[in-house]
C-alpha cells in the first residue's frame, strides 16, 4: 500500500507533514503497545528493506514509540484509538525522521483492514 492510501482509507492525521511521502510503500506491519515486544520481534528481521517498508502500529503516544521505531529503522508510526501525541513527541518524530500518523480506528480494526489490503505481519525470525 502507498502511504497516501493508508492515510486516505483509514482517515489518518499526518503529524509530521514535512516528512510525509505519499508514494512511500508499506508492505509490512507490527502492532504492540509494548515496545519491548516490538524490539524483540522486529530486531530479528535481517532484511533492512522489510523494516523500512514497515509501519509500527501502537497506542503508545510517548517518546518511546518514536525511539523504538528509530532504533529499528522503521520509518512510520501509526497511533490508534484517536490518541493525540504531545507536541514534544511530534518534535522528536521530526528530529528522528519518523512519519507520525494517527487514526481513530482501534488497533485490531486497523490491523485487520491493512491485512486485507495485503500488508503482512512481521513475525519472529529465528
Amino acid at each position: 500500500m502507498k502511504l497516501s492510501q493508508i492515510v486516505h482509507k483509514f482517515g489518518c492525521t499526518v503529524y509530521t507533514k514535512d516528512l510525509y511521502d505519499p508514494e512511500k510503500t508499506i508492505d509490512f506491519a507490527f502492532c504492540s503497545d509494548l515496545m519491548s515486544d516490538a524490539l524483540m520481534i522486529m530486531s530479528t528481521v535481517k532484511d533492512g528493506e522489510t523494516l523500512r517498508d514497515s509501519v509500527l502500529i501502537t497506542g503508545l503516544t510517548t517518546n518511546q514509540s518514536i525511539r523504538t521505531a528509530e532504533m529499528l529503522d522503521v520509518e512510520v508510526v501509526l497511533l490508534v484509538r484517536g490518541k493525540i501525541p504531545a507536541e514534544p513527541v511530534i518534535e522528536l518524530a521530526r528530529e528522528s525522521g519518523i512519519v507520525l500518523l494517527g487514526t481513530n480506528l482501534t488497533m485490531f480494526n486497523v490491523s485487520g483492514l491493512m491485512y486485507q489490503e495485503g500488508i503482512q505481519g512481521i513475525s519472529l525470525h529465528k
Partner: protein
Amino acid sequence: MITLDRHFVIVPNDYNEAGKASSELKRTLKRMGFSRDLIKRVSVASYEAEINIVIHSLGGTADFKIIDDVIYLQFIDCGPGIPDIELAMQEGFSTANEVSRLNGFGAGMGLKNIKKAADDMILVSDCNGTVLKLKFYIREDDKNVG
C-alpha cells in the same frame, strides 16, 4: 585507534529523555558509514540497556567507544542490582513497575534481546550496582556501506 569516545549520564525514571544516548549513538554510527545490520544490533542493545537503567536503577552512565574494529558499550548503574541474574535472563521475567509498563517496557525481554544482539556480553551485579559490557565486532562488510 580510538574513533569514538562518548559518555552519557542516564537519569532514573526520566522517560522523556530515555533513549537519547542510544539515538545519538545510532546517528553517529550512521554518519560513520557502518552497515544497517550492525547499526541496528548496536542501537537495539544500547536502547534496551539504557531503558533498563531508567526503569530499574538509581541512575547510571553509558560509555560508547570504538577501538580499531570493535564497538564497546558499557553501562554502569548505582544499584540496587539484579538479585538473580539467571532469572533476569529468562524470557518474560520482569520486575518492572506499572509506570514503566505504561511507557511500553517491562515485558522481560530486554536482557535476552541484548544478549542476542551483541557479539559478547558480560553482566556483573551486586547490591552496589550493575555493570554491563557489550562488544560488537566490525566486519569488513560492515564498513563504508552507508
